[in-house]
């Protein structure tokens, strides 16, 4: 990936996302959720998407709104069912959306593997459970493991706190969650940030996502998190 572009609008940031793309969407609940990029993606119109994210939408905003607009064919996530996941629940019960439930750690580690060039890895999670079905099992040093494959994205949409103009990123508190991993696992990583600063303003010891993983940056207005219907 060459140097990150800094774009003027979220619409420019999501331009060109093709129908049928696999999109990694950051966030854990509201924290780190790239709401502005998702709104832009809804306007942009890409269809038949596969979404990889920890949850499957809260309330009627963000991912839930993308689902409600009928743009999503399949969701890979660890925890779709929540108190306020009514949009997903409805689509799922009507058979209008595919679901692959992935243990949260596998979701993270499989994306890390995609970013790190690992072809597959043996993991102890889910051995002996229904989620082991169809997976290759192997015993190593007396412990049972399942073979897990990478999850690669065409795009990642993530939220971060501050970017420098090179594309280095820092996050805030537990809003860091999936962002740094997804940035490594996607062909094109698109980031919404609260602020863009000059190179040299971020402490090089504290950069969490190095610039090499970032393709497009857009600064957005600070979000009020008191979103109706989402927690």
């Amino acid at each position: 990936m060459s140097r990150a572009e800094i774009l003027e609008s979220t619409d420019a940031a999501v331009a060109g996302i093709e129908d049928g793309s696999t999109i990694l969407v950051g966030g854990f609940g509201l924290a780190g959720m790239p709401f502005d990029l998702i709104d832009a993606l809804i306007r942009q119109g890409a269809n038949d998407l596969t979404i990889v994210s920890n949850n499957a939408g809260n309330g009627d905003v963000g991912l839930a709104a993308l689902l409600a607009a009928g743009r999503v064919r399949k969701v890979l996530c660890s925890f779709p069912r929540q108190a306020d996941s009514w949009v997903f629940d409805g689509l799922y019960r009507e058979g209008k959306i595919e679901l692959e439930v992935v243990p949260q750690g596998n979701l993270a580690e499989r994306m890390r593997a995609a970013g790190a060039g690992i072809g597959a890895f043996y993991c102890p999670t889910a051995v002996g459970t229904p989620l082991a079905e169809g997976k290759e099992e192997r015993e190593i040093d007396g412990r049972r493991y399942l073979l897990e494959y990478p999850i690669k994205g065409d795009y990642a949409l993530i939220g971060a706190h501050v970017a420098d103009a090179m594309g280095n990123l820092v996050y805030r508190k537990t809003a860091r969650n999936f962002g740094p991993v997804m940035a490594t696992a996607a062909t094109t990583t698109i980031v919404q940030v609260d602020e863009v600063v000059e190179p040299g303003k971020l402490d090089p010891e504290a950069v969490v996502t190095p610039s090499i993983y970032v393709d497009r940056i857009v600064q957005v207005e600070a979000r009020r998190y008191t979103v109706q219907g989402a927690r």
Partner: protein
Amino acid sequence: MTITPNDQVRADHLLSMDELAAVIARDIPSGAFVNLGIGQPTKIADHLPAGSGVVLHTENGMLNMGPKAEGDAVDPDLTNAGKVPVTELPGAAYFHHADSFAMMRGGHLDVCVLGAYQVAFDGDLANWTTGKPEDIPAVGGAMDLAIGAKDVYVMMTLFTRSGEPKLVPRCTYPLTGVGCVSRVYTDHGVFDVGPDGVRIRETYGVSAHELAERLGIQLS
């Protein structure tokens, strides 16, 4: 399957979940690194003695998590795994999800405490889905926690509302993990489980013999 009775009844009544949380808090070693699962186990934090040095991990990416945030301290970027706003203690550290789950799956946590639908005498755990066709499956980090911590404790009522035991010879609900639970804390008593079978550690408001009978186990 053997059961070692212990007739030392430690309370004259069944414990409330809050009382049970206090019992578990007492058993967590000083200085331990601990993950408290979503729901009832979260209560345990309120009972940890000051100066216990217990460090709480939350799988969404933090060590040394503090109590629930109230009022102006609420920060939407700082929540626990149940998405409840929390606080940060001095000496906290943040990390991303792959690092957080590597910490769990690598066996670095001393204790995690989870809720459960069922636990088997040999330590099998079922706590993620009822398996009913109308239930949308959702696993979160439950399977990672089940295989990750050095000791996995379960906190639950011993019987369902309709009176069925939840500590069972073999789980009928879909499994979360195989042979992973080492101890089960319930309103009726505390049990060690594992490859050697179940052992009653202490009971509340009921004798070990009575409990063994209700669980349908012959004492050896």
